[in-house]
């Protein structure tokens, strides 16, 4: 179709398009660092937990310690009201020791589950009003006064960590927060690492723990599964690191790529929505055509209203 453009109109379109393209391009050159790099680098002060499944004896001392530090009631549903016996992470359990047992061989292992405190957490990327956020030292914390209870964090988390209080009228998102308010701020280590009698889970700077874990692998060749640390690169890297002698998938750690999930989800949209340049450009283009067709429609409308006596409806 041929477009009847006056010079003024054409000029307006060019200015509009140029402006929107410029808003799309300029900030990108200004801001060199990406919001969600594919492989995030841990800041120097990032803390971590290192859990060695081969050291853990399954004493579960960390579980009551966690409940006590976080003020969580014991989950006594299964034990008939006697002991804390959760069947997995739930609304009363932020930390759990699970047993993996191969029914055929005598292979077994314990695994400690809690929030992995990813370097680029999917839950934080998805949380609409910033209720979940990466706090000091990299702890992922939850703020009750910003949460709308949309449960997007539960959909986003590849480790299925955040738990929702389905039975509460005022539901909270329950997840390990690295004892951020309870202990980290008071210069104490998290309750679980403090309680662990065997040193299966230890607390420290992420760089130090990563070096320590690689040391353990190097000193005992063949002991550890795949000779690697789970959490070094998984989903862009996590601040909880695992060593295990049996397959990570068998003890319930999902097989994940090395790219951060936030990067995967926002790599295209972050460019489109940067300074709303995409929507502004689209509205510029749509607006131009709508206005042109509107003017045509108006002329036609007036003419046929005059001719037929039938009014036009919007």
């Amino acid at each position, binding site marked *: 179709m041929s477009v009847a453009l006056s010079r003024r109109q054409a000029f307006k379109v060019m200015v509009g398009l140029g402006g929107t393209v410029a808003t799309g391009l300029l900030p990108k050159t200004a801001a060199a660092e990406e919001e969600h790099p594919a492989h995030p680098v841990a800041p120097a002060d990032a803390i971590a937990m290192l859990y060695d499944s081969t050291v853990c004896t399954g004493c579960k001392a960390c579980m009551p310690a966690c409940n006590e530090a976080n003020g969580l009631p014991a989950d006594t549903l299964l034990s008939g009201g006697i002991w804390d016996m959760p069947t997995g992470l739930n609304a009363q359990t932020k930390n759990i020791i699970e047993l993996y047992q191969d029914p055929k061989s005598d292979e077994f292992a314990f695994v400690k589950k809690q929030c992995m405190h990813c370097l680029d957490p999917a839950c934080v990327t998805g949380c609409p009003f910033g209720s979940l956020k990466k706090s000091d030292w990299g702890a992922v914390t939850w703020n009750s006064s910003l949460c709308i209870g949309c449960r997007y964090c539960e959909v*986003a988390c590849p480790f299925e960590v955040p738990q929702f209080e389905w039975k509460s009228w005022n539901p909270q998102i329950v997840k390990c927060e690295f004892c951020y308010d309870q202990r980290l701020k008071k210069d104490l280590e998290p309750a679980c690492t403090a309680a662990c009698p065997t040193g299966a889970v230890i607390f420290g700077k992420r760089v130090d723990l990563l070096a320590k874990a690689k040391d353990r692998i190097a000193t005992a060749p063949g002991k550890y599964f795949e000779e690697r640390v789970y959490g070094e690169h998984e989903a862009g890297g996590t601040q909880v690191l695992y060593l295990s002698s049996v397959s990570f998938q068998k003890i319930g750690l999902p097989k994940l790529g090395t790219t951060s999930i936030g990067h995967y989800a926002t790599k295209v949209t972050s460019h489109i929505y940067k300074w709303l340049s995409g929507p502004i450009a689209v509205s510029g283009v749509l607006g131009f055509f709508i206005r042109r*067709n509107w003017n045509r429609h108006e002329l036609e409308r007036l003419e046929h209203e005059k001719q037929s006596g039938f009014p036009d409806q919007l």
Partner: protein
Amino acid sequence: MTSTQPTSDKRGTTLINHWQSGVPVTHGPILTPFVFFLLGVSALGLGLAALRFFSPLGPFSGMNDAYAWGIWKTFNVMTLTALGSGPLALGIAAWVFNRQNLHVVMRTALVSGFLFYATGLVALGFDIGRPWNFYSAILPWRWNSESAMLEISICMPLYCFVFLSFEILPLFLERLYYTGNDKARAFLRHFSPMIRKAYPFLIIGAYVIPLMHQSSLGGLLLLAGTKINPIWQSPAMPLLYLIAAGLCGFAFTIFLLLIVCLRYGRALDADVLNELANLLSGVCVAFLAVRLVDLTMRGELHTAFALNGMSLIFLFESALILTPAVALRFRRVRETPRSLLNMAALACVGGTAYRFIPTSIAYMPPHSTRYFPSAPELFIAAGWIAVGMVGFILAINYFAVLPGEASTWDHTFRPFGWPHKAAGAAYAPSVILERGA
């Protein structure tokens, strides 16, 4: 196609057809047994939903921590708003691509779209756990601008309650003009030109905002990553969700027009339906092309055609879209109301299947739990749909929504029960000419 004699009325060159303007349904009872049935379903749903005010989510739903999103989100919002994308699809075709003969069916699309969005959003209000914190939506410094959820939670209500409401405002003003007093008419004569002034600017928002949030609905699922089967999990999901919205928008508008016009004995318009069917088939082809390119580029073609469970679901879903894409290329199919209705229905099912499957069947979190909506969940979901259907039936009876021949206009139609000046007056085009909006 049902043939009708065209009226002697000579309209603008691009507007010659049997459907000339929105005309309300003027005959037959409103409260039919079917409407009573719908009212029963909505009363049950609304009653249960009212109980939700006094109850946490747990006892109400089958949702759990692995399947944290139930059908209120995944079906009532993420799937049904695709069917409610008629205003977006038809509006862009009519106003941006200058398909002027689609203007006459815009009102049908607008009303159905508004009802789908409004009922979906209300359902969402019962689904979120801490709705009292939602006021953050008006505090921009709290926004997490990279979250697709934020985009949806702000844009969807904004679209429904500002832009769509503005677009259906002329329906109400028109009715007020006929049933109101002289004062109201004087006000409307003053007010209607203002609407016409603002209209071309506001509809830009009415198209850009759904383009944003319909694609963000697919963007939501990107963060779910490996939990979604690789046949569906793809960086192209935002684009595919958007195309599926256009597909469902066209398909559902055709379906609705045919069903309702046949129900109320309206003459059909071959030109408009032909145009819509053509566009539908084009969007179906575009959808399948993007799907195929996406699967090929990600190297998942062998997964998609492995003929196992998930692959068969994918093939079934694609067949539902491929059938109308091919069939509607044939003029005879497009011009036979029955086959057009069938093809539009297939496209509706196929498009909604694409939107629903990644959140339900293909959503496989590693924990071996399962989710099936509980009875109250299903009743409430059905209740909101029934509310929308009752709303649509009332709207076509009280407002000039359905397209018809302008000569069948009777402005004494179904007054709300109060006497008004126009009632009983003879049909006088001069009165109508004065009408604004």
